């Protein structure tokens, strides 16, 4: 981005945003690299930690919930963290490094998990909801191999560290499967992305999907009164961390009494000023 921005005078004001999940031994090296990148490229850097945002590090979450459902927390928290970090930096566009392999994996995962809403949008290069900051994945058609090769020739640091708490066994299976497919036929990754772009959610199904609203506690977009992060956080704070994982546990949480007044919550989310009304030219994925 830096090279292109300078060479072609994109006129973009660039920021680096890194999320620190607070996993000892996992992010340490890559955060060091990020700091070095900041000096090297002379771009302002914001490292936003789960601790700062939610009052919980992943280490602390795992200590409470165990290693079974921690990926749920990590994923929900990360997604919001990027938007919140972007809002703090007052930027209007987030660019992530997802490559073709990541997107193919996400297409398969969304089908296997029945996540129809995500499936509908995961292959877009650029997504923009009404209340979210625009996001792009410029490496959508670049294989992981190509990116590693670029990093290799340009002598860049590249991290592919697997999350140490990760064992999201299910995703692990999907990832191994994808590697097998690629070995059987290297175009499989791009073929899966093509498939993902060749279908969409049926109109009548779209109509029944819950309308987006805004979380009454933190202001982030949500399909329920409370967003996922707030629900998860409430569970953690009240020592019933699995409450948000199943509906049954959620009911138990509600039955346990109203939300205590002193409950720690996530700072209220405000879209960067001027964003809501500005006119975007939506960049759609190729048909």
């Amino acid at each position, binding site marked *: 981005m830096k090279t292109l921005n300078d060479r072609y005078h994109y006129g973009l004001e660039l920021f680096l945003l890194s999320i620190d999940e607070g996993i000892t031994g996992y992010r340490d090296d890559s955060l060091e690299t990020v700091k070095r990148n900041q000096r090297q490229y002379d771009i302002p850097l914001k490292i936003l930690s789960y601790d700062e945002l939610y009052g919980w590090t992943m280490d602390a979450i795992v200590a409470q919930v165990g290693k079974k459902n921690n990926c749920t927390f990590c994923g929900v928290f990360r997604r919001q963290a990027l938007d919140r970090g972007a809002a703090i930096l007052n930027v209007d566009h987030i660019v992530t490094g997802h490559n073709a392999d990541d997107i193919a994996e996400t297409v398969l995962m969304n*089908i296997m998990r029945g996540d129809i809403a995500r499936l509908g949008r995961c292959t877009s290069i650029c997504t923009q909801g009404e209340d979210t900051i625009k996001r792009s994945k410029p490496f959508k058609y670049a294989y992981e191999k190509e990116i590693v090769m670029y990093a290799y020739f340009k002598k860049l640091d590249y991290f592919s560290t697997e999350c140490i708490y990760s064992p999201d066994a299910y995703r692990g299976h999907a990832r191994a499967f994808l590697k097998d497919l690629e070995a059987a036929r290297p175009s499989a990754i791009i073929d899966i992305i093509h498939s993902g772009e060749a279908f969409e959610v049926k109109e009548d199904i779209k109509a029944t999907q819950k309308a987006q609203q805004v979380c009454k506690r933190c202001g982030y977009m949500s399909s329920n009164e409370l967003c996922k992060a707030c629900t998860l956080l409430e569970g953690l704070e009240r020592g019933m961390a699995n409450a948000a994982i199943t509906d049954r546990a959620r009911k138990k949480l509600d039955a346990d009494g109203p939300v205590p007044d002193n409950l720690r919550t996530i700072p209220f989310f405000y879209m960067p000023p001027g964003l809501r009304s500005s006119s975007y030219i939506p960049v759609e994925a190729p048909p």
Partner: protein
Amino acid sequence: MSCGNPTDAEAVMQRRPKHDKTKICVRCKVARGNLVIRHAVYCKDCFFPLVTHRFRRALEPSVNSKPDGPRRTALKPSGNLLLGYSGGLGSAVLLDLVHRCYIAFDRSTMQTDGGRDHPRHERVWKKVTVCYVEVCDAFPGMKDRSAEIAEIVARYEDFEFISLRIQDAFNRTWWEKVGGIPISSYLGVSLAKEDLVLTSHSSPSTPLESLHTYLSSLPTPTAVSSSIQTLTRLLLLHTALQTASSHLLLGTSLTSLAISLISGISQGAGFNVREEIQEEWAPDGTEENSARPRGKRRVRIVRPLRDVGAKECAAWLWWRGLSVVGLDRRHASGASLGIGELTKDFITGLEKDYPSTVSTIVRTCGKLAPKGDVAGLCVLCERPAQAGVQLWKARTAIREPVFQDTPDRGEPDAPLNSPPSLAPHLCYACHATLTSRRGTSRVEQPSVPLPVWTSVSPILEMEYARGKGTALPPPGMARMAEQEMKAVVQEFLLDDE
């Protein structure tokens, strides 16, 4: 890169105990259970009505040509019935269920509705034909099972039987017998480059030789398996036309449907997810001069076992004393695994630990619709092809810029001197089947024969004629003379003096 970020409770795949605490059948609440189906326990007596109910529920709303909601009218199909039979698990259950429900009128299959005059007591399809496609000639050393199959089908009264061989896909005698347009000249294709140049395939070899040339020219094991699937499907569909069948039923179980959906998506067939579940097929519209009866040219493919898992199919056969014929093809071929086989291993493995995965996959895919415009039928698989495929490929990869799509696909005009090419008339997945390689290339045939239906495709003939420079522009697309063009744009032209 990162770990997962599932959204809601159902998204978190948790291992659940194999079944709920009780060992008593959930249906009759009396008998001791014999089988666990997706966490629920059933006894043997309740199992048969359960499977029968799911079978009818998946099939009967699609019997009448116009769907009539939650079916309460009589079942009146517009033609006969064709059953695809492979000898495998699902299709064995299919034969048995169709026979019990619609031919033998087994009492146990209709216990919920009373009344002797109920429409279910009338014969639904006048003629029921079973069709088997023997694929052994595609794999060296594979056993011919057609005799065994014929014997099994003969045990059921009132089933007609048609036995085909996979090489019939290259057999002009078969083609003319099922009512196809007589073949005047054969078209072949060169697989050397991605545009797939059409050739005149001059030496009409035997169907078996053609099959072997075709399969051995394919670039990957994935391509071989999926080509055999496509050829089998088209053989069945044309047989359905021949037998005046309005419906073709396949014994695809819930498990095999999940496998074929994921396998198809992994091969780029996302546009055809809908057809993979249920398909309305008609041969390419221009078959007006064929010998087939008019008005009987639509076939609906239904997979009535799509709610019944492989395990339930196995239990059905076991308790009914029926057996499966044939074995896994991979043992016969000994070749490395293709995407289809890998997907099968993956899904069946996953199903053991996460039993709800297969139904989630099928349910999710059922909520999808193709996106973008249809550019006619693919000349190879005869499923709707998405418009703009070649442009998409050109945009997403660095490769030789050989592609020119034909004008009727809403893409750049083919220059008159470009060679006649198959690529623009294929769907994405079929194009990948013929061109996507792994590692180094092998010996290349200058000309590979095409299946008979592709060979007679009017669109391809036109394309071939165009490339050979003998083409007349299609009607309404006459080439404008320079003067004519000038007349049209006259008022916008600036004087260049």
